[in-house]
């Protein structure tokens, strides 16, 4: 596990804990099939993209926890918006640790489908549900 992975792991744990009261368990690298998520690009002195994919049952549950409601009441649109916001906040948190003092700006998060291996995967609430992140830095 390199230092970026450590920052990603800590960022995901901090954000999921603060936003959704979840305690993710780190599982190393992995590959999620049939999952959807969000990607957010950033540019400036550091450039790259952070991708996040997660199984939709988890996304729905986390969205419910974020909104303080039951998952039965969470719509597909709310789940989609929550996933975008989650990527946005994890990216900002991770960059604070990875590139302190550098100039950069975040783009707007966009929906994606799972597309390969991600270096940081998690379980949430002990279920076979994964959260994957991939980060690429240029410059």
């Amino acid at each position, binding site marked *: 596990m390199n230092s970026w992975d450590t920052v990603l792991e800590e960022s995901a744990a*901090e*954000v999921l804990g*603060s*936003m959704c009261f979840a305690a993710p368990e780190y599982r190393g690298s992995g590959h999620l099939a049939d999952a959807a998520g969000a990607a957010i690009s950033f540019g400036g002195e550091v450039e790259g993209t952070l991708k996040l994919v997660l199984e939709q049952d988890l996304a729905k549950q986390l*969205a419910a926890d*974020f*909104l*303080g409601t039951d998952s039965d009441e969470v719509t597909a649109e*709310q789940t989609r*918006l*929550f996933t*975008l*916001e989650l990527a*946005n*906040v994890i*990216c*900002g*948190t991770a*960059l*604070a640790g990875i590139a*302190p*003092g*550098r*100039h*950069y*700006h*975040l*783009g*707007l998060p966009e929906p994606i489908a799972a597309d390969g291996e991600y270096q940081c995967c998690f379980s949430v609430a002990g279920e076979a549900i994964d959260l994957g992140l991939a980060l690429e830095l240029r410059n």
Partner: protein
Amino acid sequence: MLKILLVDDSPLMRQFVARSLSMTEFEVSVHHADNGRSGIQAARELMPDLIITDLNMPEMSGEEMVEALLLDKVLCEIPVVILTADSEQNRAESLLRHANVQACLRKPVRPEDLRQQLERMTADAPELVMERSAW
């Protein structure tokens, strides 16, 4: 009652912040706008006691909105709190130099952070609510 305008392109984040504000001991009425342009329009109509705004938004960013508010002789008096996922320190420091920006908070924000902002705001200007209500 404190009138608060939330400006964020994510309706979920606005809902989260509104819920967090309702969990404080302050009586608040929360109003919403989804970008800087609609935020300025809402501010003009509502004259809120506080604007809490995101930075990265389509159409007009939070930074552009803060600068536009400063150029307006009435709206320039409304205090603004920045709430953003963008963690770049220089950007935050630059924004804090604007007279109307009271604080920059980083997402994920905790209800406690918002409560502290409201406490600080009402302690610094206890007459604020009364004045704005009278308008």
